[in-house]
């Protein structure tokens, strides 16, 4: 029996003309210096808040933020960078959702999600998040606030730099540039249409 696949591929082969060369990858004219200030400028322009911190101060900085914004339940990734923060959070009345508690309803009920970012792209102010059993996708998606931690040395110039540095791809590699947004109603910008209304980055220097 001829399948749709055979029919489509046969049609394409019959129509194939002369070979066309695949162009070399261009090197984008990306800046190589002062990536951190460029990232801060561009991420801020996209609506991301940025606070610089250090590994030592991270836990207290995050707890201050969560207390100030009256967060009750926080979903968070399991990660070496977040070990101290998690331990410190356990000592507070806050409810902490671990990756294995990420049922959709419970994450949807969280007030904030804490993740790390593998890379940050300076040219576009973008965060790059991977995905694994310890790094669920919904932590950065369902809660109205997304807090992301990234070491300053992981700021790269362009998307091309990320693509050449990424090993085997995870099931989802997510690029986040500012909060969820829409301008569908009379072109009026509105934040937080489906995803987080606030995105805040802790840049570890």
């Amino acid at each position, binding site marked *: 029996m001829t399948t749709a696949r055979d029919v489509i*591929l046969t049609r394409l082969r019959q129509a194939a003309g002369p070979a066309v060369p695949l*162009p070399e990858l261009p090197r984008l*004219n990306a800046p190589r210096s002062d990536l951190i200030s460029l990232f801060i400028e561009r991420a801020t322009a996209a609506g991301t808040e940025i606070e610089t911190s250090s590994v030592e101060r991270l836990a207290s900085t995050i707890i201050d933020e969560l207390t100030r914004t009256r967060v009750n339940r926080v979903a968070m990734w399991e990660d070496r960078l977040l070990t101290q923060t998690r331990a410190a959070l356990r000592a507070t009345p806050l409810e902490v959702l671990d990756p294995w508690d990420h049922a959709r309803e419970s994450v949807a009920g969280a007030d904030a999600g804490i993740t790390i970012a593998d890379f940050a792209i300076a040219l576009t102010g973008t965060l790059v998040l991977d995905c694994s059993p310890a790094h669920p996708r919904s932590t950065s998606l369902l809660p109205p606030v997304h807090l992301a931690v990234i070491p300053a040395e992981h700021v790269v110039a362009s998307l091309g730099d990320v693509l050449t540095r990424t090993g085997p791809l995870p099931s*989802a590699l997510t690029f986040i540039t500012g909060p969820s947004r829409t301008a569908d109603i009379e072109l*009026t910008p509105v934040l937080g*249409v489906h995803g987080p209304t606030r995105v805040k980055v802790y840049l570890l220097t």
Partner: protein
Amino acid sequence: MVVTTTYDRRPTTVFPMTKRIDFEQNSEKALQNAPLQATLRTAMVRFRALRISAVEEIPDWQALRQHAHDTKAHALAHLDRYLEQLERQVTGAGGVVHWARDADEARNLITRLAGSSGRRVVKSKSMTTEEIELNDALEHAGCEVTETDLGEYLVQLAGERPAHIIAPVVHKSKEAIAALLSEKLGVPRYDDAQELTRVAREALRRKFLEADVGISGVNFAVAETGTIVVVENEGNARLATTLPRMHIAVMGIEKVIPRLADLDVFLTLLPRSATGQRMSSYVSFLTGPRRAGEADGPQELHLVLLDNGRTAIHADSSMRESLACIRCGACLNVCPVFERTAGHAYGSEYSGPIGAVLTPLFEGLDVAGDLPFASSLCGACGEVCPVKIELPRLLLELRSRVVRQRGAPVAERLFVWGWVNAMKSARRLAIAGKVARVVQRFMSAVHLPLPYPFSRWSASRELPTPPAKAFRERTL
């Protein structure tokens, strides 16, 4: 105020009908609609300004366009090979690849996958599923289908079709949207966009949490890695591809690109051309379904590769490059015709200059032969296209095909015959010019309507009084 217009749209049955798209009649309705004209103009001016500032920031822009053009030309020339590679890689990552020759086959396939009656389906924006009229088929099979892009959701609630690739609800005022949400969801008539968006968010969040199936489009599919790339601003595509247990991605076969690294170029071009953003809020690279131990993501990933006329365009060597389109909408935003008629006049989900090329190719010249004439051939579309599709050339080529098929109207042939004869010698031209000036002076003096076909020109214009002497008489 509620903008109510009925547009020529294809019927909402699962059987597509071949009704001729009457661009002139459709656009007349848009032209009479003053609020629509004002909204459109503001939107187009805004989109153009945003695009320009985003493009000026990239010194290599022209080189990037050329690269994207060449990469697409290569991918299209070797499409069979890249589709097979894509299939291998997606399968290797745990996904399932399906092939569909036409809309009917795709609808049946997806309806079967989505499963039994009562299934709740959430959809993120996809032109391709509009093209195959998937929602009707799913609803016919008993599924509950919810469009989740805010604009698409509003269009669905209103029972209409999107008016613009990127801004589906650009034809509706805030007041019209407030009335719509109030009527359909039983909420108060809020008067600001923030509140209206919040209402929609809450309604849609519930749909997401209980959905069984998520359906998305595909912006790019990477043959090298089997990765599906989805670009968006709202987060609804992330939700649709993260929460339900099944994700069905639907793509035209032309969306495949060779290498992961090519995305550096395409993702620089697409957001800047579409919305003037440096990067869209969310770009998802999806490689296979959820893996062992992961807390979320779909357990099943299905990728539907749709032909539906694309292999025929692929075989048409002078039209093939139209398949390079990455659906950014930049050509719509610069088109003086689109700016006045909006998307519905084109009678298809693909509107503007690219729609005037694709719809005749998909539906046939007898159905959509008017569309290539819906252009002033000013060339702006070709200038902004991020993949350098020569839109004016394609429009002209289609026009000549239409004329060859339909034949030119008698009046046009008569005019050309007269023109050819008048231009054969200087003496004839001088005589013809004298006659024309006498007639023109008389007509402009008496203010009579001109005879057909000139009446169409003079319907909205004054006939100018000709000078006493022709230009050549004055200079000789």
